[in-house]
């Protein structure tokens, strides 16, 4: 990465999924690496099950906090249709890391709209590089559904312009107060997220 290059990471999902917290930890890691950082938060009505995105930009000096369409290096999607919704923000060679969760809103249940049949397939068909995995199943297999967020952070860890350990250290710090057991569980979730993406990429390069 050149001295002035800005890294754009877009994290998306729906209210209550932990999008903001995940982005906050990513921002802390970028700060630890000495970057200037800007991070947007969408609040207000979005917390009522609406669309949530968080824009994270870091580099030597960040001006506008908004990411432009077509400029995202990594899209971290907490939900399939939401990843599709924001996929036009990806750079042509950008990478989408998508949790396979399917959260269907009432307007779809009422039959007013359709949920896309295969959101990640649609993204691939549009030419995007996509790795999808099931963060919630991974978390459940580790014994705690709430580890899903850390699985997501593990998934992105190898696609940042700094070492995965920088991010892991920020996760450790966040859970340090909750004791060694919780820290260890999160370390496992982080490793599992990294492995899930690596395995997929090895099997079928995105």
């Amino acid at each position, binding site marked *: 990465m050149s001295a002035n290059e800005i890294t754009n990471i877009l994290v998306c999902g729906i209210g209550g999924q932990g999008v903001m917290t995940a982005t906050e930890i990513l921002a802390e890691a970028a700060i630890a690496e000495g970057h200037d950082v800007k991070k947007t*938060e969408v*609040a207000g*009505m979005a917390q*009522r099950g609406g669309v949530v995105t968080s824009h994270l930009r870091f580099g030597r000096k960040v001006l506008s906090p908004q990411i432009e369409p077509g400029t995202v290096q990594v899209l971290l999607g907490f939900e399939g249709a939401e990843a599709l919704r924001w*996929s036009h923000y990806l750079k042509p060679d950008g990478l989408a890391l998508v949790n396979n969760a399917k959260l269907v809103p*009432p307007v779809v249940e009422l039959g007013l709209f359709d949920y896309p049949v295969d959101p990640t397939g649609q993204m691939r068909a549009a030419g995007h590089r996509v790795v999808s995995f099931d963060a919630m199943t991974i978390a459940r297999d580790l014994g705690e559904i709430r580890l899903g967020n850390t699985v997501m952070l593990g998934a992105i860890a190898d696609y940042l312009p700094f070492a995965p350990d920088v991010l892991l250290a920020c996760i450790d710090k966040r859970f340090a107060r909750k004791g060694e057991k919780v820290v260890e569980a999160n370390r496992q979730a982080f490793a599992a997220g990294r492995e899930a993406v690596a395995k997929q990429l090895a099997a079928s390069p995105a």
Partner: protein
Amino acid sequence: MAAVMSQSAPPAAASRLLLSGNEAVARAVWESGVRVAAAYPGTPATEIIESVARYPDLYAEWSVNEKVSMEVALGASMTGARAFCAMKHVGLNVASDCLMTMTITGAYGGLVIAVADDVGMSSSQNEQDSRFWARFAHIPMLEPADSQEAYEMTKFAFGLSEQYETPVLLRLTTRICHVKGLVTVGEREAHEPAGFVKNPQRWVMVPAHAKARLPGLFQRDETLRAVSETTPLNILEAGANRSVGFVTSGPAYMHVKEAFPDAPVLKLGLSFPWPPEKVRELAAMCDKLVVVEETEKLLETEIKAAGIACHGKDVLPSIGELSPQVLTPAVDRLLGKPVPPPAPAAAPPKVFPRPPTLCASCPHMGMYYTLSQIKNIIVTGDIGCYTLGAGHPWNALDTTICMGATMGVALGIDKGRGAVDKNKRILAVIGDSTFMHMGMQGLLDITYNHGNITVLLLDNNTTGMTGGQATPASGKDIHGKEAPKVDLFKIVEALGVPNERIQVVDPYELPKLFKAVREEIKIEGPSVIIARRPCVLIDEFKPFRPYLVEEDKCTGCGNCVEVGCPAIHVTHRDKVIKPSGKEVELAFVSIDSQACTGCGLCVQPCAPDAIQHVPRRDIPIHIVKATSSS
């Protein structure tokens, strides 16, 4: 509610913290030695006072509305204390009565008003430009462009306020309030109030006193215009490429720098009064001048009136947020540069909308389901989570204007209706916090003027939409500590609603709710139904044993879907032809037992009793924990 600061020990000076604009303003308020800070919650400004309240050694309050918060701040300033209030753009409309006179009294202790414009309308009923208030009230305005500037300008504002004895407006927008950036912070400075000095010519605004002070307003404008020419907050950056130069302020500056890094820019931190000589200097150094402002054509109009040629809204939009993506093609077109059409890949994919919804077990669902089943009614609405009742599947609100408007609008419909609406029943919906903010006066108007209205007071014990802030009826103060709890029933009665026409119901009990609504709309005259249940997002809410759908019993009638709960999912659809020949759509459902908190609203309209409690062994652990602790 992002909280980075601990309650007892604020981070030390010179620390670099990742702060939102709201948190940065709060830090600066504390460091400036502010003694009194007040606000009513409103997106995107809510977190300012929430954050201020976590600091020691100052008084912070949730006020009942923005006007009161401003009056509290003014009163504190009269004693010589530094004082602060914060509000969203529409809040300043409410507070403007105070604003327009306190500009004449001026400030004694430093007095700063933060106003946050919801540019792009993420959570508001309108998009309005608070920069007009600075002109209207003759008050200086500061416009930060990011968190660091929000912090620095807030501190500057208190000094400016005291030096020129003026209130100062700090204009924020959503992109300042809710964007986090690194901020280098300092220490709190002590600020002991000089004391209240009796001075009726200054503080008693009768015509004779106010008249004598009016020339001071205009003098202050001119004095501050001179300050504006020299302050380091107004920076003229000479760029290398002088084909186009920009005048801008607030977050728009960041977009300009991102899109045109080599262009000359006049960045206005003190944006009113703005510096004409500096603008002339910029105009002289570039071929074309473009004013980049969100949202109205304000500065552009004033610059043109000063005889300086410029562009602005002839090339840029007046609605919504600006961004480099908006600026670049617009300015390139102005310069006669070729503008490539947007790449097809850049088009957003078509995905269903995901509007905000009521939460699973939200007590408002009971009321809206009820209203959706009653014909021949007109329902006026208000501002809050319960505005979502206007959406699917309930479609149960017919109007939403501004805080408290539900009452007056309902009375106006009642008095204005002709023969065509004669048989309709009129209901007014309002929340508990909104009722105390601005709804009480409207109800008084209804009772005083013999309105034939049924008011539905949805009491969820909190200010819901902004994230669960305390109210005078919640029995808690801004710190979560015990506070006097006002009795809404008694208020309603005192406002003139007959005791027998006030019913308190549980919105989870649909039959009782139906009965109460049907009863009250039939009776002539004002009535109030208080639907009381805590918001599911506050501590007072205790979840119940969740439900599931017994698949073999579900007949696909879809009644439960009409309740509108986000925990109910359609598993498959079907169609049947009834004996009458009519085709009926069926929707078979399941319940997400992880999301369900057992309110039972969907159980009541289920004809085949297909909705049953989950077996005890399957109750999610978070609900077991919550129910066992209650």
